């Protein structure tokens, strides 16, 4: 029975044409092959699964191919086939991670002066070259300084910064980039179709996202999914279940419950997701990833959420409901969960505590201080007027309560209209915070007594009250109070009450 070959090996590109992404590398190498501008040492750097080894093998084939076509290997001649099988006598592959000593490099280098047997070049592919020992690097350097014309080195590494500069400067360096989710999606779709499966768009999105720019990881995940699926049409839930990650729909739900501040339903939802067998670690990772998107969205509404698919649009709508500070707070808590997960027996508990803490946690300290100050002033005002006497000021219960939200919104309108009338007027008002609205009065607190004085000048007061009427739709009297601390410091008495 033929043994099963993993998808990423089956679908390793065999020609430059088949390579996904890395156009800048492919274009340059083909041009070098066509116009005889090859150098004797190449360094391929870049994250894993981005095509370094694949392109190295294609280059080896193109160099030794008996019938190359426009820089592409023919893939059918004897040399191409032998290189594909790994049995070529002229192409040497070495994994420096497991063969890192001087002896191994010497073994390789000693035979360099001998001419190639089958093709035109002897190609040495050294993977993970940064793992070589210092002595091995020195031995390699001597060869790179003056290699025979028939030798060509392709060094590949994920960490170019660990390669000595003397080696770097002797190589032509190519930096491979992470693949975009679109590139990965396209390739996964192609592979799935060729294998007789069709994937729903959101399922592809999920796989592409989980691949994190590495096509090899993407194909491995696809491999798992295809192996386990009995049905040729694959849906997102199946993929999510198989790779133990929650589908995008659930993520949107979690974030919308976070926005609502609905802790109870949030816990139920978490419970439901985890009971489906989703790996808690993977859930936390996803929450962090989506939280990051949310953070970017809250900073820049035009941020591209393409990789989240249709759910990205829904997340976009949620973004205005969080301030960047709030999201950062959430991300920090999740980060902590990620760290603690390793030591904790009950991952669900950790997650609940973190999210619950986020929801039930008090808003930032400054907010608290501000609210306390407002309360104090209100109590003072009440005391002065006598409890229960006079107009009752509409209480501002909590931040985020509709009344305060509305008040702020209307205040913004007031400022806008004031700006149209006079820049000074707006400047005086800008210093003010509307702190209470009651009966026919609007109480505005300003920071300095100066602003209070200016606003109370009859001319200005008239103008402001006209604006208030325009905004609220009914006549309102303006009451200005100056900041208490400021007044005390300057020895001024309590804010003057406005006589109706």
């Amino acid at each position, binding site marked *: 029975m033929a043994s099963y070959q993993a998808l990423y090996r089956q679908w390793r590109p065999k020609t430059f044409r088949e390579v996904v992404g890395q156009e800048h590398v492919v274009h340059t190498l083909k041009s070098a092959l066509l116009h005889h501008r090859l150098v004797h040492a190449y360094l391929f750097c870049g994250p894993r699964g*981005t095509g370094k080894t694949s392109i190295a093998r294609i280059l080896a084939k193109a160099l030794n191919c008996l019938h190359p076509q426009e820089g592409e290997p023919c893939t059918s001649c004897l040399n191409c086939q032998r290189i594909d099988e790994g049995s070529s006598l002229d192409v040497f592959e070495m994994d420096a991670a497991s063969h890192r000593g001087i002896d191994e490099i010497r073994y390789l280098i000693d035979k360099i002066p001998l001419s190639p047997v089958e093709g035109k070049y002897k190609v040495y592919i050294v993977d993970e070259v940064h793992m070589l020992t210092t002595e091995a690097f020195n031995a390699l350097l001597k060869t790179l300084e003056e290699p025979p014309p028939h030798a060509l080195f392709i060094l590949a590494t994920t960490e170019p910064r660990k390669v000595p500069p003397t080696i770097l*400067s002797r190589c032509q360096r190519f930096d491979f980039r992470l693949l975009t989710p679109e590139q990965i999606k396209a390739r996964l779709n192609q592979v799935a179709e060729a294998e007789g499966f069709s994937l729903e768009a959101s399922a592809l999105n999920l796989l592409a996202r989980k691949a994190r720019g590495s096509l090899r990881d993407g194909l491995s995940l696809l491999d798992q999914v295809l192996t386990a699926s009995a049905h040729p049409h694959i849906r997102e839930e199946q993929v999510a279940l198989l790779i133990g990650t929650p589908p995008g729909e659930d993520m949107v739900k979690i974030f919308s419950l976070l926005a609502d501040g609905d802790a109870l339903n949030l816990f139920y939802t978490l419970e439901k997701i985890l009971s489906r067998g989703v790996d808690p670690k993977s859930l936390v990772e996803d929450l962090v990833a989506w939280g990051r998107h949310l953070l970017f969205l809250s900073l820049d509404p035009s941020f591209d959420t393409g990789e989240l698919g249709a759910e990205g649009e829904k997340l976009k709508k949620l973004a205005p409901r969080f301030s960047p500070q709030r999201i950062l707070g959430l991300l920090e808590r999740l980060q902590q969960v990620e760290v603690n997960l390793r030591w904790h027996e009950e991952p669900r508990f950790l997650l609940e505590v973190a999210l619950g803490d986020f929801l039930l946690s008090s808003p930032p300290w400054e907010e608290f201080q501000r609210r306390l100050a407002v309360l104090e002033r209100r109590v003072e005002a009440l005391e002065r007027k006598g409890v229960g006497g006079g107009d009752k000021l509409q209480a501002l219960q909590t931040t985020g309560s509709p009344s305060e939200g509305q008040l702020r919104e209307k205040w913004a309108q007031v400022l806008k209209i004031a700006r149209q009338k006079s820049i000074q007027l707006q400047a005086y008002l800008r210093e003010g915070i509307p702190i209470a609205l009651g009966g026919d009065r609007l109480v505005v607190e300003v920071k300095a007594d100066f602003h209070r004085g200016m606003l109370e000048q009859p001319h200005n007061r008239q103008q402001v009250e006209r604006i208030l009427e325009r905004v609220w739709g009914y006549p309102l009297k303006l009451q200005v109070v100056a900041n208490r601390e400021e007044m005390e410091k300057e020895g001024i008495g309590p804010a003057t009450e406005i006589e109706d």
Partner: protein
Amino acid sequence: MNWEELESSWRKGISPVYLFWGPESFLQERYIKKLREKIISPQGEAFDYHQVEGEGARGEEWVMMAATPPVLSPRRMVVVKNLPLELAKAPSPALAEYLVSPSPTTCLVLCCREELHKGFKLLELVEAQGQAVAFLPLKGAKLKEWLVREAEAQGYRIHSRAVQLLVEGCGHDLRLLYGELEKLMTYAWGDRIIDEQKVKLLVPQALADTNIFALTDALGNRQLPLAVRYLRQFLQQGYSPLHLLSLLTRQIG
């Protein structure tokens, strides 16, 4: 003599002894190659060209080689690489003796990567019979001119902004710069123009070090969305977060 005058001096004849000194090893190698092509006939390569390691040697061996007449070429060429500084200060008796009356049928090239100064015995000895050639690092406008000339020599046009980016990204290591230029020329085979965009595409170092300014600027001006966008670009290119952090601290600190 400076390396730039070397080639034209060959019109008057090749000296029996050269001393190449200075840290610019890329150019030293290039001129050794040129000299070799000039002196050694292709069939004489195996007989008349020798390259030896200077480190740890005293010179007796090279003198023997240099004193031997050539076989197939008009002259023999002996190249001594990595000549140690001590030997430049105080040449061994065998070397000193040879340099007083070098063989007219040999071209001995001594290469030292160090900077030599007036008063070094070897400089005096060589200059009496041959040429001492300085290979000092190219800097500033000269470096840029060199890059433009290199590109033009192969029929390419390189924009000044591209030159600027290359130099900012790769420093003044000519080997590295030439390597990047060669890559760019291969890429731009079709239109023979090297512009800013191509440099950014193929020379990530250039991109990183220019954009790190953009990133710090964005941070300084508190343009959060812009800063985040730059940061994402870096990460997309596979930059490690730690490296970025160090670049940032270097810029800000």
